[in-house]
């Protein structure tokens, strides 16, 4: 009983329950064959795509900020790769560096604005979101005359960033996702820097007084979100041998929903990487797993909405539990 109650106090609790709930729902009402679902690639590929961005977004949200410009950065990374390697036929390595550099620059821009002004980061990154959409579309038309650019990738780039594993249909980004999850977990929960990020989200002024370089960390976190989004776009361009200009609006909300279902507190200071990992899987199973059910796939969004509300409600409850918990009341 003690173990169970201490599990409930962990930030990941609600995401695990959501996952189990969704699976139950799909099995009972959708007649899903779990064997088939767990062997399917569609939802894992999708989870990896949003999961790689969800990790840095989770850290940023734990620090009390938000970045919605990620929506524009996924197509921006893809287009940069395609334009440099496809249209200008420069070596792939140049294209990769260019795509990541675009991410670093936009992240730096967001971070500097966030730390130098008192404008809420939702508004700042809304500005960069729309601005980058304009730059990507107009820039692509200006440089290539089209909104869709083909490219061919060398074998090594395919293997590392955009291939299918073992000739099947699982994409190689899944490996990246799992490695990055381990790296982010270590960073957030084991290193002292993670401690600082939680403190910034808890109380920025006190964190500054305790000698934590708040501005520097905030800027780095923004660079992390923008660069990882641009990385995902780059992997896609290499995988599909082409890139299109797209809004990427759906990605923003999908990623933020995954993070919130994963137990990260919207106002900062609380959350866990494990929770976000499970939250991402849950989200991907709802969206892609519905194809394996007898349920009409148009209901997927309703399920997401309901799941989000339930998960947030559970998060609230569990957080209160964590706060009031007196662990060792045993005498003697």
């Amino acid at each position, binding site marked *: 009983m003690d173990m169970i109650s201490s599990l409930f106090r962990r930030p990941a609790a609600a995401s695990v329950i959501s996952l189990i709930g969704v699976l139950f729902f799909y099995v009972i009402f959708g007649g899903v064959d779990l064997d088939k679902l767990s062997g399917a690639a569609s939802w894992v590929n999708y989870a990896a795509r949003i999961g790689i961005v969800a990790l840095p977004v989770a850290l940023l949200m734990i620090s009390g900020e938000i970045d919605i410009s990620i929506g524009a950065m996924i197509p921006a990374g893809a287009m940069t790769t395609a334009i440099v390697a496809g249209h200008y036929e420069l070596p792939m390595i140049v294209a990769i560096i260019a795509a990541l550099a675009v991410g670093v620059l936009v992240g730096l821009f967001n971070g500097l604005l966030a730390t130098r002004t008192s404008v809420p980061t939702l508004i700042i990154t809304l500005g960069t979101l729309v601005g980058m959409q304009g730059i990507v579309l107009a820039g692509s038309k200006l440089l290539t005359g089209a909104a869709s650019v083909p490219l061919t990738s060398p074998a090594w780039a395919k293997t590392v960033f955009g291939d299918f594993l073992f000739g099947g249909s699982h994409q190689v980004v899944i490996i990246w996702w799992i490695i990055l999850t381990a790296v982010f977990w*270590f960073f957030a929960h*084991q*290193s*002292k820097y*993670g*401690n*600082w990020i*939680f*403190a910034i989200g*808890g*109380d920025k002024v*006190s*964190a500054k*007084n*305790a*000698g*934590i370089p708040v501005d520097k960390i905030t800027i780095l976190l923004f660079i992390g979100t923008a660069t990882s989004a641009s990385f995902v776009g780059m992997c896609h361009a290499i995988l599909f041998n082409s890139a299109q200009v797209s809004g990427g609006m759906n990605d923003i909300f999908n990623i933020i929903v995954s993070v919130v279902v994963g137990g990260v*507190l919207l106002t900062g*200071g*609380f959350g866990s990487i494990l929770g976000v990992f499970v939250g991402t899987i849950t989200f991907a199973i709802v969206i892609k797993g519905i194809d394996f059910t007898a349920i009409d796939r148009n209901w997927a969004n309703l399920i997401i909405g309901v799941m989000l509300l339930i998960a947030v409600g559970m998060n609230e409850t569990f*957080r209160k539990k*964590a*706060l*009031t*918990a*007196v*662990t*060792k009341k045993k005498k003697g």
Partner: protein
Amino acid sequence: MSANTPVIELRNVDKSFGPIDVLHEISLKVRAGEVLCLLGDNGAGKSTLIKTLAGVHAPTRGEILVDGKPTTFDGPRDAQDRGIATVHQFGGTYPLMSIGRNFFLGMEPTKGFGPFKVFDRKKANQIAVEEVQKMGITRITDGDRLVGGLSGGERQSLAIARAVYFGARVLILDEPTAALGVKQAAHVLRIVNEAKKRGLAVIFITHQVMHAMTVGDHFAVLIRGAIAADFRKGEKTREEITDLMAGGETMADLEASIEGYMETHEGHPPKVATAD
């Protein structure tokens, strides 16, 4: 340096923001193992004085002496490095972080090497719990507990224990008992005493005279940015101090006039004056 040199001393410190003078000729000193109580009503300039002591504001005129040497602080970090720790009303703690992580924030103990330095949770929790217990808060036994689950007094105590552990020599406590109940306030006062016993110089800011009288050795009353009275323990009664803080209109006068009214009006208290 003799044992009698004040750890921190202000000499004729003025502070103005543009044309507005907030502090006038403030002179005060605190020695090691002494509690100076700064009393004042809201708006008397207490928080400006704290910020000046903590290195947030530089004095417009006058000087700050640390260990008898004139000093200027480059900012709050500089003041902290010289052993001046400020604990604010809510303790500067992070409710959703554990006790151990709160205690060592910014000074995390690590183990391992290179990029794999790991936050040493066990050590952090153990030291944090030990230090808080040494301060007399025996209810805290688990360093993994979230700080948000502690009472206000316990959070204050944690912040004070942290300052003491990291080598504070001057402890500035900004209204530590203001938001607390009677029992919790007693907790914090006990810890103030403990810090004093350990040889810290404590500056205790409050407007609760009773709390000040319990722990203070030395008192200064601040009115409109100037020190209106400066006296030692036992030199004034509680009523006298309250009167001073109220700024001249003495409580006793007020009470007497109400009593006088009640005597002549068959025990009714005075009606609130209404405009004719």
